[in-house]
């Protein structure tokens, strides 16, 4: 920046921000004014051209303001539209999923009926049904209990307040140990082969589950008493009191629980027999 003598003394060198606050006007204006005093005025046509260019610049500025305003006014509903579109799609997919699940359940029931008809021996059919109930591939109804387990109140910031897959495993194993016949977590039925594991959250089988977790179990009448008296439950009751965990933990005795069927696991070893018409499968095996 050049030194120059205008009416007021100016200090630009001090530091940029101070200068900015002291005198926000572009110093070029003062300089130009000074030049005008010292030099002969440029020819008339030149001044006129400058004026026209300045006007064009002003038109451009006005245009810019209008465009910017339109842009802001337009993007807001656009975003809303995209959001709503996504929400609709999510809901549609959810509906579709539940419809497909219902279809699957109906078809599974149909398959079971047809198979019972094909199995001439009623005792075999009964055995199969019991095995199905035990392995989780058919819907079951019965009395039992519900364990409600939830993350501590500050789970978002404190990882110790979060329920781990290990916790669910512990409680489920205790339930199996005290005679539970069927268990589901958040409506996901456990089969003889479903895992409870960690993977960016907790997965039961192939499905993610989130807090609060509801473990429903059907079992013998003494399941509730045995389970609530167990060491595992004692441990978790303890954990709810600790300030660093503060889990939510509650056991409720409940009758007429309905546990849904699990989706049929992929068959890995069993194969459809080669068109042999005689329906005599060897008895159940897990």
């Amino acid at each position: 920046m050049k030194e120059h003598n205008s009416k007021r003394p100016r200090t630009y060198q001090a530091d940029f921000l101070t200068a900015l606050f002291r005198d926000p006007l572009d110093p070029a204006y003062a300089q130009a004014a000074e030049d005008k005093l010292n030099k002969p005025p440029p020819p008339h046509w030149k001044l006129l051209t400058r004026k026209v260019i300045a006007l064009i610049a002003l038109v451009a500025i006005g245009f810019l303001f209008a465009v910017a305003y339109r842009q802001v006014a337009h993007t807001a509903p656009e975003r809303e539209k995209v959001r709503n579109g996504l929400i609709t799609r999510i809901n549609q997919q959810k509906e579709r999923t539940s419809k497909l699940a219902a279809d699957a359940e109906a078809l599974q029931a149909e398959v079971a009926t047809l198979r019972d008809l094909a199995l001439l021996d009623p005792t075999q059919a009964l055995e199969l049904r019991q095995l199905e109930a035990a392995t989780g591939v058919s819907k079951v109804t019965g009395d039992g209990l519900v364990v409600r387990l939830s993350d501590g109140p500050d789970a978002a910031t404190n990882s110790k307040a979060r329920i781990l897959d290990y916790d669910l495993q512990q409680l489920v194993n205790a339930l199996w140990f005290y005679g539970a016949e069927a268990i589901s977590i958040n409506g996901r039925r456990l089969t003889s082969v479903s895992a409870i594991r960690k993977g960016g959250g907790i997965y039961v089988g192939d499905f993610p589950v989130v807090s609060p977790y509801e473990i429903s179990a059907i079992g013998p009448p003494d399941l509730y008493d045995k389970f609530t008296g167990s060491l595992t439950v004692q441990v978790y009751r303890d954990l709810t009191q600790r300030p660093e965990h503060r889990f939510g933990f509650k056991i409720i005795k409940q009758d007429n629980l309905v546990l849904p069927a699990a989706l049929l696991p992929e068959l890995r070893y069993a194969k459809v027999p080669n068109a042999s018409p005689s329906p005599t499968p060897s008895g159940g095996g897990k």
Partner: protein
Amino acid sequence: MIAVLALIAGVVAGILLEPTVPLALQPYLPIAVVAALDAVFGGIRAKLDGIFDDKQFVISFISNVLVAALIVYLGDKLGVGTQLSTGVVVVLGVRIFGNVAAIRRHLFRA
């Protein structure tokens, strides 16, 4: 007076022509607006000070917009786009406030 009319003409043109901003230019729009505002208020103040100059006005507008756009572009490439945008807005904002205060003093003697 003509200047105000030109500004209004620009706004009307912008509304009537309904231009769409290319996606690549969208991040520069807010910064360009702030830079343009700075040029406009600087120009008004210079006018009131009696030292307005057409050439300086055009140069300050164009260089403001270009420098602001360049800073945002560089910032985006370096991964500090928002911070640099903030810096530009702060500097230009201070200038706008200062000029508006000067304009106010001119107009209301207060």
